[in-house]
């Protein structure tokens, strides 16, 4: 029996929210290997109770700063499903544009600001301002553009303002769209350079059998705005029946609920979407995937980074296409009316940057939310993250503890977990 040692990282950095890595080793034997989620619970599901449904997108977007657009979208979808509202084509296009903006913003933030420092062996992007000014400037430009897409559509890049069931409180104007179009075209070079940069980086390999999940849209668009939940196992589940596929449960070391699939560990997010829908990518994004040598059947969590780069290209192309389409006729669309004003239950399931997000509301006849349940992509990934940590540690045991800690941090970070979101 070897000496026992503990590897502990308190508050993993460069992720959103508070999580600790706790590993206890006895010689080569792993006694404990957990990702402790110590984020503070805020009880959003209870906060929503009793509130008028119009507030739901604005309350629930406060679950998370990084994916506030995603939350607002899932929320407004849930409300619309509950009230029997079918959003018009332009409304869907504008919302998808906003989502594309958020994807781009979130992915750039993750790959350039949070992950890239690992590749360059520095603690943050700050030293890179001096050492790799081009990389930093490019990242800042892309992020600014992504933020401006969100501001144009919904007023702010964090906490969208204009979301209502069936209508928009503000429609982007022609001049604004034209300005975006110009900048999107100009950004193609930056995305190209981004792909180039990440194609030249290499990451550890941790392979494990997992089930990938994503909610695929009918009609063949790349998964973003939701649809039935597809699994690499072949199973397909309707959004309202998400409970058949996703089982939430409590564990002692996490304020975020863990989720089990029908068949053990599941994974969502860029890599899962890529696995399930890579054929749906825009040609330029496919090309990026080829340059990044991203395999469709990759199960290596470190490949999340490459998949996010591919999806950045995708989001950018989609934004460009959507802006161009909206420019043909930017006039506002008439609001869609509720088919079921007395309320009922509705589920909004969308693909946010980190994976499948579910908002499930029951709305009463008084227009107030009776009950709410939210499932967050990071929660869906927690079991997988710990599984990967367990699979990764044996290849690290020979090394000094700080190195093990660093390697595990990188693994956790690769998933781009959003901890405050997962606890909500």
């Amino acid at each position, binding site marked *: 029996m070897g000496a026992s040692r503990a590897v502990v990282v308190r508050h993993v*950095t460069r992720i959103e929210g508070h999580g600790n890595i706790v590993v206890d080793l006895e010689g080569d034997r792993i006694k404990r290997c957990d990702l402790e989620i110590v984020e503070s*619970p*805020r*009880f959003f599901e209870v906060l929503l109770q*009793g509130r008028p449904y119009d507030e739901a997108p604005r309350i629930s977007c406060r679950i998370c700063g990084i994916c506030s657009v995603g939350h607002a979208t899932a929320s407004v979808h849930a409300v619309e499903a509950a009230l029997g509202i079918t959003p018009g084509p332009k409304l869907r296009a504008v919302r998808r544009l906003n989502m594309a903006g958020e994807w781009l913003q979130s992915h750039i933030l993750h790959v350039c600001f949070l992950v890239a420092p690992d590749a360059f062996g520095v603690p943050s992007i700050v030293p890179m301002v001096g050492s790799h000014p081009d990389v930093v400037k490019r990242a800042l430009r892309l992020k600014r553009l992504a933020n401006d897409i969100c501001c144009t559509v919904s*007023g702010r*890049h964090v*906490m969208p303002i204009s979301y209502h069931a069936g209508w928009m409180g503000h429609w982007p104007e022609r001049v604004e769209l034209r300005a975006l179009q110009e900048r999107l075209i100009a950004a193609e070079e930056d995305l190209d350079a981004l792909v180039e940069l990440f194609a030249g980086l290499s990451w550890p390999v941790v392979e494990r059998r997992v089930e990938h999940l994503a909610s695929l849209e009918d009609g063949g668009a790349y998964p973003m705005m939701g649809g039935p939940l597809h699994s690499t196992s072949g199973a397909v589940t309707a959004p309202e029946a998400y409970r058949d596929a996703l089982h939430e449960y*409590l564990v002692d070391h996490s304020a975020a609920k863990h989720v089990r699939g029908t068949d053990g560990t599941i994974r969502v997010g860029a890599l899962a979407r890529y696995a399930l829908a890579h054929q749906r990518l825009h040609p330029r994004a496919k090309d990026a995937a080829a340059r990044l040598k991203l395999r469709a059947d990759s199960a290596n969590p470190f490949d999340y980074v490459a998949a996010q780069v591919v999806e950045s290209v995708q989001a950018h192309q989609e934004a460009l296409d959507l802006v161009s389409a909206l420019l043909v006729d930017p006039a506002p669309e008439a609001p869609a009316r509720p088919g079921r004003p007395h309320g009922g239950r509705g589920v909004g399931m969308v693909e946010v940057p980190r994976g499948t997000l579910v908002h499930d509301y029951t709305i009463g006849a008084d227009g107030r939310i009776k009950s709410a349940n939210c499932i967050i992509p990071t929660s869906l990934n927690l079991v997988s993250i710990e599984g990967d940590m367990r699979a990764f540690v044996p290849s690290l045991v020979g090394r000094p503890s700080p190195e093990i800690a660093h390697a595990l941090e990188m693994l956790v970070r690769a998933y781009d977990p959003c901890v405050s979101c997962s606890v909500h």
Partner: protein
Amino acid sequence: MRPRVAFFSFGSCEGCQLQVLSVEDVLPELLSVVEVVNFREAMDDRGDDYDIAFVEGSLVKPDDVAELQQIRARAKILVAIGACACLGGVNAMRNRRPVTELAREVYDGRQDGVFAALPDASPLSSVVQVNYEIRGCPIDRIEFLEAVRSLIAGTVPYVPPFAVCVECTLRGTPCLLERGIPCLGSVARAGCNAVCPAYGAPCEACRGFHEVPNFEALGEAFFRHGMTRTLAAEKLQLFNNYREVREAWEQAVPSSSAT
């Protein structure tokens, strides 16, 4: 010498820190005037030696209190950023109900270990002295930069004393209240350039109140525009429900007995 600044967060969505990261165009300039020594969301560095601490989030779990006190002890200037830190924000909406009930609904009644929660979600000022506040949910990046500029110049940040309506009117936004939409702009503190009404949502007073809010008149205004006075109270709960913040309006606008 560049002042050393640190960022911390408690119960929140970290959106305010994200707003700090979204100063892309001036980030290099910002880094040339301050030295960031601690910013978990974006860097590994964990300096304990700082002049200015920007703190986001409400106090929601028992450990938060001691941690905040430690930050206070180290920082020369403590700045609360965002509605959660300044007012309790959306988090304080949960204070309507006992925490045991919340735990029952969400965590099968567990309140131990990672599930522990303070009875009330509260703003930083409920525990330590806060030197300055940058309000909003989320904070406005321009206002943040203006505050940083004032602090590094050695003076106090400017805080507008008037209502969101002033900015809203100057922006030329048609008034939502006049159309019967429950807008709180007339009691809310300006500084956000009245962004919500401009994008078609009523102001929900995420920045708290201006200097002389008149809540009775707010109820009256709601009533005159075809809404109930109770609705005013209900809207005020959204961001301003922490005990001491609520005291200001609770007597003035009748609350519905609903949760």
